[in-house]
């Protein structure tokens, strides 16, 4: 079974051809193009314009790289939400057109769940707690009582959003995470930042304000970056551990662009080892927003009998993780 997965919830548009190989995901091609604003944050309509321009070339490239003919596709899956409305509508339109043209079924996929499913299918994690950290999303998700539940999440901004806003203020290129990680590696002095954990929820906006204030007061950039990482990652690791204790699970899976950070990976791995558990990290391109995770989740849902007519493919900007009926587990 071959599925074309199309992703476009935020700054990235992606397309991938994925095959089902005895229940494991085989990613045959996975093309990602990121919209990088010249200044300021992501303007939803401008990002959508970028996606509208690039979605067709990206799909063509994914199909060409997979060395298949479009007629060989059995299924089209797309990111139905959550995300930026104009972006979601753009890729949904592309997916619908393709599904009608090729006369194959279409499936709308929840973006957050796709991060979890691609991790399960490529890392060997069976029943993990997912720590999903990206620009817009910061959530702790796991399968519990028949659904994917959000056990903890950010009460204000996503962690990636904190890093990007901080970066924008002080001239780090977008996305700021990789540069910030390099600077942090040269820092060593831990500066006090507001550690905010309530139960299994976290909040980051106080840290952003405090960090910006520190830089304007003349603190070293390297030390501030180091402190941002140490404090925010400790918060995330702590709530992940709480979720593990609460659900009695021993595996952790990382997802989202920020999970490419080496320090975060190490902290989570140290924590799971201390508990006698195991942590799993998908390869970099599968951590980012990508079409492969959408395509794979589409396959999983299709095999479980999920069917959608075009009228069911309306996008949902606030598509909650626990709205999805998980019929495949």
């Amino acid at each position, binding site marked *: 079974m071959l599925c074309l997965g199309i992703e476009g919830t935020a700054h990235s548009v992606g397309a991938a051809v994925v095959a089902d190989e005895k229940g494991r995901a085989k990613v045959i091609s996975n093309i990602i193009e990121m919209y990088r604003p010249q200044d300021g944050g992501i303007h939803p309509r401008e990002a959508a314009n970028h996606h509208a321009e690039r979605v067709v070339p990206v799909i063509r490239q994914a199909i060409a790289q997979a060395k298949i003919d479009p007629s060989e596709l059995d299924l089209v899956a797309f990111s139905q939400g959550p995300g930026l409305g104009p972006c979601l509508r753009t890729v949904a339109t592309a997916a619908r057109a393709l599904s009608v043209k090729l006369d194959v079924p279409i499936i709308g996929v929840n973006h957050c769940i796709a991060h979890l499913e691609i991790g399960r299918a490529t890392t060997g994690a069976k029943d993990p707690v997912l720590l999903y950290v990206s620009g817009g999303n910061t959530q702790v998700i796991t399968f519990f009582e028949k659904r994917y539940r959000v056990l903890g999440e950010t009460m204000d901004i996503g962690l990636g959003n904190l890093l990007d806003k901080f970066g924008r203020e002080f001239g780090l290129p977008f996305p700021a995470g990789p540069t910030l990680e390099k600077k942090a590696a040269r820092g060593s002095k831990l500066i006090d930042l507001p550690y905010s954990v309530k139960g299994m929820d976290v909040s980051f906006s106080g840290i952003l304000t405090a960090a910006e204030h520190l830089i304007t007061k003349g603190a070293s950039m390297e030390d501030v970056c180091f402190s941002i990482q140490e404090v925010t990652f400790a918060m995330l690791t*702590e709530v992940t551990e709480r979720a*593990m204790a609460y659900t009695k699970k021993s595996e952790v899976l990382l997802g989202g662009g920020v999970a490419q950070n080496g320090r975060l990976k190490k902290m989570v791995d140290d924590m799971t080892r201390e508990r006698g558990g195991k942590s799993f990290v998908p390869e970099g391109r599968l951590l980012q927003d990508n079409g492969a995770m959408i395509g794979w989740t589409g396959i999983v849902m299709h095999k479980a009998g999920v069917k959608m007519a075009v009228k069911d493919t309306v996008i949902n900007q606030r598509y909650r993780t*626990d709205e999805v009926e998980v019929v495949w587990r």
Partner: protein
Amino acid sequence: MMGLDISKAKIIGIGAEARIYSTNWRGRCVVVKHRVPKGYRHKDIDDRLRQGRTKGEARLLALARDAGVRTPIIYDVDIKECTIVMEFIEGEPLVKVLEISKVPERKVLLRSVGQAVARLHRADLIHGDLTGANMLVSDGLIQFVDFGLGIQSVEVEDKGVDLHVLQEALKAVNMEDLFKEVETGYLKEWSSGKDVVARIKEIAMRGRYN
């Protein structure tokens, strides 16, 4: 801590941040709560969090007693080691007692839970985790343990959330309809708590899963 050898104590519970032991200490049956160091995080953060939380929990336990709520007596606090030594309370978790009780007994129990929570809130103490395992029934009386997520607050919101957690916990064991007994006890003890009770509905409405 003098004369306390935690390595020989019996573990009775392991949470995400602490280990709970029971042992004998100076001729008494005690519970020891030890917040274990977490190697994954920076040592300064680790020390600050564990010490701050140990201090905060000990303070809340003592203040709750002053407010007229049954909590374990604290015998010793070691900030450096992040341990609290407290009275061992013979009792059953509330959730278990509720499960084996008949409806009239359940109502009596939940009304006294409401009264006790009202005493906490009147003193601006928030428990932070009012779930079935953190309340013990001992000789028919409600005992509060584990103030690990507790705070001091004057806010109606924090008090409302505190009760909402209890409401959710009752829902999980299919006793949601008995939550009104908690409210009855709460208002009987503290008539000014009506703002808090009114807020619970609002909090439930904006809840994540509604």
